[in-house]
Structures are given as C-alpha cells and as structure tokens.
C-alpha cells in the first residue's frame, strides 16, 4: 500500500514539549492558585469493609481555617450517583463521591474538609470522629465467590458482578481427542501505574458568570466535562475542563474519580476555587489498580506442537467500586493471541472484593492475556520437548492471512509474526545463546533464555464510550503560523510534535510555526481521551484529514492565482508551484493574504479564511456482536518479539537481566524517536511489573504497599542492556499506516522473564506460576525443587 508519509512524517524530530519539561517550566495543576482558593483534604477509611454508624465533624468545624466539612450523607441527596459504565454486563451500582453508609475499600473517602490551606485541612481531617462497625474483609476473589461469602455490596447479594461466556462448537471433543492437554493455574498480580504526577484537581465556580472551570490532571477532559454536568446537575455548556501539562497517565487518568466529581460540587456550594492534589500514599490506595486475574487455562495440542484448542476460566478481581469491564473483556476476547486457534471457550467471572477499584492501566486485560498465553505456550513446548521458538513458528498466524479474523471475531489488521520472531532470534544470537547456556550450566551458572511474542490490541471503541473517533481543527493565521486544536490531550505522548509533523508535511507550513492546543474543552473539538494507544490510530489521521483539506484549499487558491489546474500543483519551499514548471509559482504568504484579505480573488464558492476540520473514525470496529457473540472491539494490533536472557543467583534468588532483545512492529512510525522512548519506558514498566512491583493487602484488606518504600519501581540502574528494533507492517485501515504504539513494550517482560527464569531453573524442575519474581519467591521455589529432587 502507498501511504502519504512525506517528511517530516517519519523523521526523528525533537519533541516540542521537551524544553519546557527539562527546564522546569511546564505548568501542572499544582502550579495554579487562583485568588481565594480553598484546599480540600479527605478523611479516608482506615479499614476495608465496615458500616459507618456515625460521622462527627463538630470538632473539625471549630478548628482554625476550616471553612466546611461534607460527609457522604451531606451530599447523597444533593448530587447524582456516578455511572458504573461501559458495559451492560456489569451489575449496576450507585456510587457517590463519598462513602455514605458503608466502607468498601481501604482509603475510601468518607468526608472532606475544606480549609484555608492544605495543612490546616489535614489537621482537621484528624479531628473527624467516625464510628465504624467492622465487617469481614473480602480479599481473595475465589473465596469471595464461595456460598455464604460476605457481600461487598449489600444490594447485589453476592460478589459476582460480571459474567461473560463464549465457546466454539465441539470444543470438548477437541480436548478429548488431543494428544496432549496442558493445564495450568496462572495468576497475574495486582499493580498500579505510578505516573510521576498523582491526580490533581482545581474546581473554580464563578458566581458572577455562573460558570465552572475545572483544571484536572485528566487524560479525558471532554468526558469529564459531561460527567461533572451530570453529577452536579449543571449545564455542560457552562463547564470548561482544562488539562494543563499532565505528568503521565498510563491509563489511570482516563477514568473519572470520586474526588474529581466532588470538587466542582464544593466549589459551587462555597463559591470559591477548591484545590486538591493527591499525595503518593493516596494515589497508591485510590488510583486505579490493574491486572489481578486468575486463569484456569488448558491447551490441547498434537504431539508435534500444533495447537488444537484453548479453554479458559477467568476469575478477575475487580475491586470494590468497579467501574469498567475492559480488563476482563479484553482478556477473554484476546486470549488466543498471535496463534491460529479457532477452537476456544472462555468463562469469565468478574468479582467484587474489598480492594481498590480496578480499572485502566497500560495494557489493560491485554497484558494478562498475553502473559497467560505466552506462558502456556512455553509450558507446552517444555512438556513436548520442542524449542520455544519452533512451537511459536508452527502456530503463528501467517503473514498472508491478514487481515485475520480471530476466533472471537477480532480482525487483526496486519502482522509478520514469523519474520518478527526470526529477527528477534537473530539480534539475540539465539543459537549462540543456547551454546553459552550449556557451557555456563557446567560451571553452575543458571542462565535462562525466555521467548515471547506479545500482541497488543489498541484503539478500542465501545458503544457509549466515545472512543470511536478523534478530531483536529486547524487554522493558518494571517501571519502564516498554524494552530491545531486537538480533541485529545497529552500526558507525555508527544502529540504537539507528531501533529505538527503531519501538518507540516501536508501544508508546507514550517514545523516551528505550528502550535498544537489540546486538553482544553473550550477551543478543542469534542473527543474521547488519550488511552488504548488510540492517538496514532485516530487522532493523527484526523490531523492528516484537516491538513489535507487545508492543502486542497491552499492549492485551490494558488491555482486560481497563477492559472494552473490544482492537480498539476505541488507545495514546497513556502510556495505553491507547477510540477512541470517550477517558476510558475506563488508564495504561500500571498495565498494566505488572499484568503483573508483579497477574497474577491478566491475561487468561486470558496469560503474566506483558512480553517479546516478533520475527523477520523476508528476503522475496523464492530459495535455489536454477531449471532455467535463475536466482535471486534479494537482496531489495530501492534506486537513485539522478545528474547530475554537472565542469570538466576541460586543462593539469593536474585535475577539479573543479562540482555533484553525486542523487535517491535507498530506499522508506520510518525516519529521513530517517540516510538523508541515509548517502548523503552514501557519495557521498564513491564520489568517493574515482572520483578519488583506488587500491591499487597493484609488479611484485613489494608494495602501494605502504600509508598515507594514498599512498592519499589525499577530505576535507571535496573535498566538492562536493551536491543530494540522495528519492523514495519503498515496498518491498512488508516491513511498513515500507523498502529498504536504505547503499550506493547509493557507486555513483553512478564512472560519473557518468567519463561527465562523457568528456563534457567529447568534443570531443577522449577515452575513459575506466581509473580512478581521476587528473590524470596524464587529462592523458595529453588529450595522446594531441590528437596523434592534430592
């Protein structure tokens, strides 16, 4: 296919955003302080599950600087409950910004204090007396499903809140007749994303104008605007949401939070700006958590390694005030991964527990699926004594089958899995690695080689979630500079740069003269937030559409002015010129002057000015399942081959990543530098998830890992030797040929490192079924294996 990707599209252009961030001149919510701002602080539940008998704020109200206290009861009849949304399969639930009569998770907000400054607010929070009646905490999702388990939500009666079933015909016979069945229980553990900026909100209701401005560190300003309007019953048109610079989202800021909807209400009540910036401890307890699925999965195979079918039972811990089902849905629909598996059955159960709300997190659900299937394929290979690369090559969807309809109805856009893994093996030196491994084993060094090929469905669209399109509006000013208004904000993705590259490529306006405005609902067109890696799939094409329309207008005016038909004209060097006769030309500056001033010279029926609007609809999406329940909810399918090399220290259980090799394919790249850095960060986040990070709860449901002392992130010293390459298989459904590029990196490390560690310890027969791969867990497995052998 031919893609219109002329420079600077495809170039390693330096990011426009970099300078302000590295010089500390970015502007975040916490940098803002309108006159008269009051500060909020929340009383949070010290237990996970309890009835609230009473809340006494009388002492707090008398403390210095305290302006107001609101409890759940104060607000419950004055604002509408939040929507538990996104899916008809989720059992409905009323959620208020503050707990009303029952606590459902550790750290849930119970009351809010508003004071002259945050310190005074925090002091008053300590003076609020709450009488709790403790209830048994529901922590284990499997125990939560047992008959007689305490319900997290009384109105629901039980803890099963989501159910999905899918099965192809004859699946049981496939398993009955298979040469081999591999059966495992594999669990993905609970983690969170840890953006460098926790959540931060500033709501400012102006009584004079009867309007509300909400500054939020959100990844989803337009949706937030609608939700505020709904919950506080205020006209959407009078609300402006601004996401200034936002320090990372990784999914956790695309959803709307309890505190985020409460601040506008308080601001309206008190007629003052109200600010709240989350602390890290609050973020660990209240930001969205991810993963935490149990899979009872089995694979039927022939002796030669051909996969015949797959059967999975998923139990997903959705936390207490569950709000979306994307995680469990994506796992259930994409479990077959990159393999030709047309026989599949899944039973997925979503469970409510007394843990923090589960939600979006880089690789939501898809990471669990990639992890489980890439583990299972490896386990099968070991059982059948087949090389882990060979078993994958045998079962990959071949390049010529794309677009490929998978068993659950997903239509994979494009891919070259065989080529990708072949290239990964080449850069890793796979054959040589195996020889080295054999030699090192003789010396007692446990080296392991882990293989994976992970696929990441990106750019989702669901009914009633407005992710199905994105828009850019652009204007060339009379001065010749361009401004682009983007429907999607950014939290580090580099849209200011990539949109400018696209516009520069189409219109000939120099890159430096293009400004991108985003994250503000007033000037930007409506659109869903930045998540699911959808910006390169829908937003960038919408910029391309707007810029293409602009190009047509510039060329049209030029054609009229120099008397050459538009189809014979080209843009370059600040001019519109005839392709065959370059001196037949007119300066773009002259065309701009004409568009704004000399409008009598414009072609017939052309509107004055230079403004265009581009919208791009997410291609390749089914909004409704077919009669067999099959549907395609994502539109592009990037992937990456990984070979990880590790040494395991059998005395300490420590894992050293000797080398991490990956070959990534996200189709055409608008800015390969940005893709590289996305991959690097994403891989490190995956390494953190595999080796270090875990949200751990005690038996009473208190989160033990509430600070960075207890939830260790990898830092620069943990970065392994990293070999990163790309192959390019364009996405045929978008004009730029690009796929999503934000998440694939994070999917690789959990399966690749588990496979590598299991490989390293294969002589001992160690099996890895639980993560993270902490030293104590690994040493424990080693010693158990040794004693059972010995």
């Amino acid at each position: 296919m031919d893609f219109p990707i002329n420079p600077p599209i495809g170039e390693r252009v330096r990011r426009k955003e970099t300078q302000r961030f590295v010089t500390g001149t970015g502007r975040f919510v916490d940098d803002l302080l309108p006159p008269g701002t009051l500060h909020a602080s929340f009383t949070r539940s010290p237990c996970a599950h309890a009835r609230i008998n009473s809340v006494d704020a009388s002492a707090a109200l008398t403390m210095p600087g305290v302006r107001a206290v609101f409890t759940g009861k104060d607000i419950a009849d004055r604002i509408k409950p939040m929507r538990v949304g996104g899916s008809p399969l989720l059992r409905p639930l009323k959620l208020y910004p503050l707990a009303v009569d029952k606590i459902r998770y550790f750290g849930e907000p119970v009351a809010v204090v508003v004071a002259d400054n945050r310190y005074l607010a925090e002091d008053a929070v300590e003076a609020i007396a709450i009488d709790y009646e403790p209830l048994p905490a529901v922590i284990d999702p499997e125990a939560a499903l047992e008959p007689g388990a305490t319900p997290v939500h009384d109105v629901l009666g039980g803890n099963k809140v989501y159910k999905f079933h899918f099965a192809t015909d004859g699946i049981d016979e496939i398993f009955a007749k298979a040469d081999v069945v591999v059966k495992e229980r594999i669990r993905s553990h609970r983690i969170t994303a840890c953006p460098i900026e926790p959540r931060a909100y500033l709501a400012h209701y102006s009584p004079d104008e009867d309007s509300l401005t909400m500054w939020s560190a959100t990844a989803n300003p337009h949706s937030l605007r609608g939700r505020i309007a709904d919950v506080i019953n205020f006209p959407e048109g009078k609300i402006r949401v601004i996401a200034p610079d936002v320090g990372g989202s990784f999914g956790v800021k695309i959803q709307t939070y309890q505190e985020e909807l409460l601040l506008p209400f308080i601001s309206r009540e008190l007629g003052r700006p109200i600010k709240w910036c989350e602390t890290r401890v609050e973020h660990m307890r209240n930001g969205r958590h991810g993963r935490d699925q149990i899979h009872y999965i089995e694979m039927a195979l022939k002796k030669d390694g051909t996969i015949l079918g797959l059967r999975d039972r998923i139990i997903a811990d959705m936390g207490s005030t569950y709000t979306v089902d994307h995680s469990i849905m994506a796992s259930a629909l994409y479990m077959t991964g990159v393999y030709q598996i047309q026989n599949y059955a899944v039973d997925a159960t979503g469970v409510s527990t007394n843990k923090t709300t589960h939600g979006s997190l880089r690789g939501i659900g898809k990471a669990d699926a990639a992890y489980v299937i890439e583990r299972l394929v490896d386990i099968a290979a070991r059982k059948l004594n087949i090389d882990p690369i060979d078993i994958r090559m045998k079962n990959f969807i071949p390049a010529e089958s794309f677009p490929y309809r998978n068993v659950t109805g997903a239509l994979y856009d494009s891919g070259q899995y065989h080529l990708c893994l072949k290239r990964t093996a080449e850069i890793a030196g796979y054959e040589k690695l195996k020889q080295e491994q054999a030699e090192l084993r003789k010396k007692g060094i446990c080296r392991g080689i882990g293989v994976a090929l992970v696929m990441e469905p990106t750019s989702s669209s669901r009914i009633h979630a407005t992710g199905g399109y994105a828009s850019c509006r652009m204007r060339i000013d009379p001065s010749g500079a361009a401004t682009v208004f983007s429907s999607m904000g950014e939290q580090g993705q580099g849209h200011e740069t990539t949109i400018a590259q696209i516009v520069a490529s189409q219109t000939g306006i120099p890159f430096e003269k293009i400004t991108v405005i985003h994250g503000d609902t007033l000037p930007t067109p409506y659109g869903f937030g930045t998540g699911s890696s959808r910006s390169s799939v829908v937003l960038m094409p919408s910029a391309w559409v707007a810029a293409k329309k602009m190009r047509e207008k510039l060329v049209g005016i030029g054609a009229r002015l120099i008397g050459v038909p538009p189809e014979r004209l080209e843009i370059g060097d600040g001019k519109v010129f005839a392709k065959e006769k370059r001196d037949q030309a007119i300066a773009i500056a002259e065309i701009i002057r004409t568009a704004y001033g000399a409008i009598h010279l414009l072609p017939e029926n052309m509107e004055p000015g230079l403004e265009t609007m581009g919208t791009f609809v997410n291609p390749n999406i089914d909004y409704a399942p077919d009669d067999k329940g099959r549907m395609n909810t994502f539109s592009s399918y990037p992937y990456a081959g990984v070979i990880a090399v590790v040494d395991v220290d059998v005395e300490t259980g420590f894992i050293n990543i000797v080398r991490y090799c990956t070959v990534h394919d996200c189709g055409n790249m608008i800015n390969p530098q940005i893709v590289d850095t996305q991959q690097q960060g994403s891989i490190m986040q995956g390494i953190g998830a595999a080796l270090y990070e875990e949200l751990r709860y005690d038996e009473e449901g208190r989160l033990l890992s509430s600070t960075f002392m207890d939830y260790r992130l990898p830092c620069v010293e943990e970065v392994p030797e990293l070999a990163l390459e790309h192959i390019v298989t364009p996405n045929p459904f978008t004009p730029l040929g690009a796929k999503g590029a934000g998440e694939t990196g994070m999917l690789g490390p959990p399966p690749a490192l588990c496979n590598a560690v299991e490989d390293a310890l294969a002589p001992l027969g160690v099996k890895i079924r639980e993560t993270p791969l902490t030293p104590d867990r690994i040493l424990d497995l080693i010693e158990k294996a040794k004693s059972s052998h010995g």
Partner: protein
Amino acid sequence: MYPAAFEYLRPRSIREAVELLLRHGEDAKLLAGGQSLVPMMKLRVARPKYLIDIHRIAGLNYVREEHGAICIGATTRHVQIEQSPLIRDKMSMLAQAAGEIGDAQVRNRGTIGGGLAEADPVGDYGPVALALDARMKCVRPSGVREIPASDFFTFAYTTALEPDEILMEIIFPLPPRGSAGVYHKLEKVAGDFAIAAAAVQLAVGRDGVCTSIAIGVSGGGPMPQKPAAVENLLRGKKIDRELTEEAGRLIQDDAEPIEDLRGSAAYKRKALSAVLRRALTESLRLTTNNL
C-alpha cells in the same frame, strides 16, 4: 504528605543545640539531613513539636585522621564520605557503604550522624561501625562521652543516646595494615534499604591464616550486629571454602530476622548467610592481593 505543625529552631552552636534539646526534651527532634525524619513527618508518623536544625552548625562537617583513627563530623554528608580520598584510601569499606545509601539526592543531603542516630535496622553505616569498633562521641549538658558502636544500637530505630544528647562525631579506628574491607549489600533495587548486608575487614598472613577479622551485619534482627561467634570461628584459622560455608551456617542459625515486604524471615536468614560468605570471599581475595 503534609506534616503536622512544628516550630523550627536553628541553633548556631552545639551548646545552643544542647540547651534547646534540654528545654524541649521529648517534644523535640534533631534535624540533620532530613532524609528519614522529613518523610516520616510528612506521613505524620513523626510529629515533633520542635525541630532543631543542627545541620547548619559550623564545625560539624569534616573528615580527618587523628591518633590512628578517622574522625567524621556528625553532619558530614554521605556523598562526602563516599568521595573522601582519605576514607577511600584507608577505609574503603566505609566509602563503599556510603555510596550504597539511597540515591544521589539522598546522598547529597543525608548525613552520617543522622543515619546512625536514626538506627534503621538495615541502615548502611551500622554494620561498618560495628565491624570497625567505631566510637560515637556525644555531647549532653553534663559533658562529653564516647559510646562504643557495640553499645550504641539498642533496638530498631533506638540508640543509647539520651533524650538530651547529641551525636557530634564518629571515630573509626584505622583497620590493621594490609587488611581489606568489603561491604556487601543485597538490595531489591538500587537505592533500597538492604535485605541483608555484611561488612568484613580481614587480614591474613602469607600462610592464609586469618590474623585479624572484624564483622558487622544487618538484616539478622531488629538492629545491626557484630557476630562475635563468627569472628571467633575465623580468627587464627585458614580461611577456605569450607570455613566460609561454616561461617555462613553459623550466622544463619543465629539470625532472627524481621519479616517484611523485602522478604520472609526464612529468606532473610539465607540472604544474610550469602552476603557474609560473599563479603568474606571478596575481602580474602583483596587482602591476599595486598600481600
């Protein structure tokens, strides 16, 4: 991350600091580099009414050699210890330990006196101070005294310092000539507190027999320890693989680690054994090179 209200006091001299401490007693906390105290205040785990900032007192920041010892002022920062040519030359294990503390930001601000007085069970200075028989020079209204490292740590986050007493200087006697020191730390990620750590200062004769041995460890209990039994086991014997293994077993059997998110007690016992054996092996290699 918003501390409770406190009053900030900034004495200009040790004498003034001692007076303030005497006046405010248990309500006061000394602030040196603030790398542990300030985060605890932000979490409201520590809530001093008075914060006495001693890190601006002149004359508490130095590294010098005196009477066969290296003397270090209490507010000397980790980075200065890590980079001091004197310490690197004559007591490399101490420089090594300082370089393993936290991250660069922590090392630029944190102080040795603060680190020792904080007495984190797995702080990096504890094992080194114990191994080298350091002495803590302290001042209080009634005068100056020296507390041997072996008496200094009394429990987790607890020292022999009296409420009105300030740690002024740490005196590290120079190790025997020809000996070699190694600080070996097992940490989950760079900059974390240790799971277990061992400081070993060892000298052997030409026959490979141990002529001097000094050990300090952390991770085996609520405070760093000087494992005399292990030292006795090694002293006067030829240090070989078998003896090293025995030392590892001995320390493991005696350890009573605290279980936390860094590992179970059972795991930490084994980790402690591994770090001790590795520190022994490495110091043996270095001291043999010195011969």
